[in-house]
């Protein structure tokens, strides 16, 4: 058995449904932007979005009304500032109210780990003195059965679908992640279904023995999408598009300008390659890129 290598639109159509809990992960690296755009293009709605670090792609999903809820630990446009659609949804309920469930990074990581491990909850030495547990009923306290020490406990995260981006896959659908690996392995293993978009499909991954590799049999679909992480980066392929990240601040500041941009470049295009052309984006090459 191998994992189907299929177009992104087909994978999203088959696995992502309205009302589901969806985690698109990537810790400032390998963020699955193309997949997020496809979810918007297919007009999915009432999603509960999960992400440690919601940034531009979640800003877009929220601003386009795809999300009913957000589970997260840090929301912003790294190096630039606020994400305006996320703020508008929380501060003013536009385009619809967003039910937030807020954690810390250590806790989100633990919740995914518990989900990946088949455990009901995660335990951590966290939130001491913090107001966060007052506003998130999922953050509770537990006594260590051995020492009696009070620790924080939160339920396992098991998204319906995890979506990640990686450098490459082989023809069986084994996926290799290099550089900052983030939380993607845990998100995939915690989820009921998982889609990986990749820069390219190769004959041989030539993965080092201890590489971060997802075997094809834990993935539901693998989709080749070159530049699929733009404007974030893919280590070894291309750099972060800082100019776009900065431009996003202006594009997203007002509701009308945002909506117009999204309609033209995301809803008005059929795939990621067309999107990049439409939005006039030249993906920045990276010095020493192995596969430019």
């Amino acid at each position: 058995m191998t994992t189907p290598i299929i177009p992104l639109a087909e994978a999203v159509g088959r696995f992502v449904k309205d009302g589901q809990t969806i985690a698109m992960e990537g810790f400032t690296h390998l963020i699955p932007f193309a997949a997020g755009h496809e979810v918007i293009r297919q007009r999915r709605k009432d999603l509960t979005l999960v992400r440690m670090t919601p940034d531009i792609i979640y800003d877009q999903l929220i601003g386009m009304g795809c999300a009913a809820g957000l589970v997260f630990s840090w929301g912003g446009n790294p190096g630039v500032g606020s994400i305006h659609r996320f703020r508008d949804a929380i501060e003013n309920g536009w385009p619809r109210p967003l039910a937030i469930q807020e954690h810390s990074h250590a806790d989100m990581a633990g919740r995914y780990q518990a989900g990946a491990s088949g455990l009901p909850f995660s335990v951590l030495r966290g939130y001491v003195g913090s107001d966060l547990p007052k506003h998130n009923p999922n953050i509770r306290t537990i006594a260590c059965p051995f020492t009696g020490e009070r620790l924080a406990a939160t339920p396992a995260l098991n998204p319906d679908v995890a979506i990640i981006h990686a450098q490459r896959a082989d023809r069986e659908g084994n996926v290799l992640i290099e550089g900052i690996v983030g939380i993607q392995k845990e998100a995939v293993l915690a989820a009921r279904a998982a889609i990986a978009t990749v820069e390219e499909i190769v004959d041989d991954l030539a993965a080092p023995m201890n590489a971060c590799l997802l075997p094809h049999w834990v993935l539901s679909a693998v989709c080749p999408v070159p530049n699929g992480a733009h404007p974030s980066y893919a280590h070894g392929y291309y750099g972060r598009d800082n100019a776009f990240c900065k431009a996003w601040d202006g594009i997203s500041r007002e509701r009308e300008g945002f909506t117009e941009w999204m309609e033209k470049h995301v809803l008005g295009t059929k795939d990621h390659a067309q999107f990049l052309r439409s939005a006039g984006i030249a993906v920045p090459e990276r010095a020493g890129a192995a596969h430019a």
Partner: protein
Amino acid sequence: MPDDAGLQYSATEIMTIEAARRLKNGMVCFVGIGMPSAAANLARLTHAPEVVLIYESGTIGAKPDVLPLSIGDGELAEHADTVVSIPEIFRYWLQGGRVDVGFLGAAQVDRFGNINTTVIGNDYAHPKVRLPGAGGAPEIASNAKETWIVIKQTKRSFVPKLDFLTSVGHLTGGDSRAKSGARGKGPTAVITDLGVMAPDPVTRELTLVALHPGITVERVREATGWELKVADELGRTAAPDAKELATLRDLQARTARAHGSLANE
């Protein structure tokens, strides 16, 4: 502001330099993005070449040639001793008690060094301003052996009461932090563009212990939202020397060239 040798420097530069000076060679430092990252790397490039910089993206022993824009820039992974997963960085390395100092920024800080990075306005459900949120800070603040906070000092950032307590400092003062279950000493220094504050040994209230060159007690009080305590023996921060300034400016210039105009904003 000119010092005795006639060097010109900005308020941000003296803040970054004074924060960097505290980092001792060989210390293990969990670094927040922005000003803490600038200070930690300045220390590495000057007096503390063997400082171990950990970023929450999983990079241990990071040695970036230019300052990262995000906490997960490829630059951090490129030269790191090792890159680990997010669960590992928070479990083995932070909660495992391996971090000497957590270097944090904040939107608001109170008189006990508690931090807010969550919301402005006192209604969490309907905030005046929604801030990015906690990130790694709550567990850095409660698991590092000590923490330092770098923040520009104004009445808006130094508030009598936080709109939201995101990450713990000395809680309500006295022994309240120790009783809370938090580990480590908590904030031992708050370094601003005006001076340095440290907790009183008994009450744990932040006390002005040093002024930057050219700054008066009056000026610091005006930038503090509560009646700021001042140490009996008030120190004076040394003005930046030529090497500190040149190294910081080279770093900022390299960063600006690498990132375009973003780095200057």
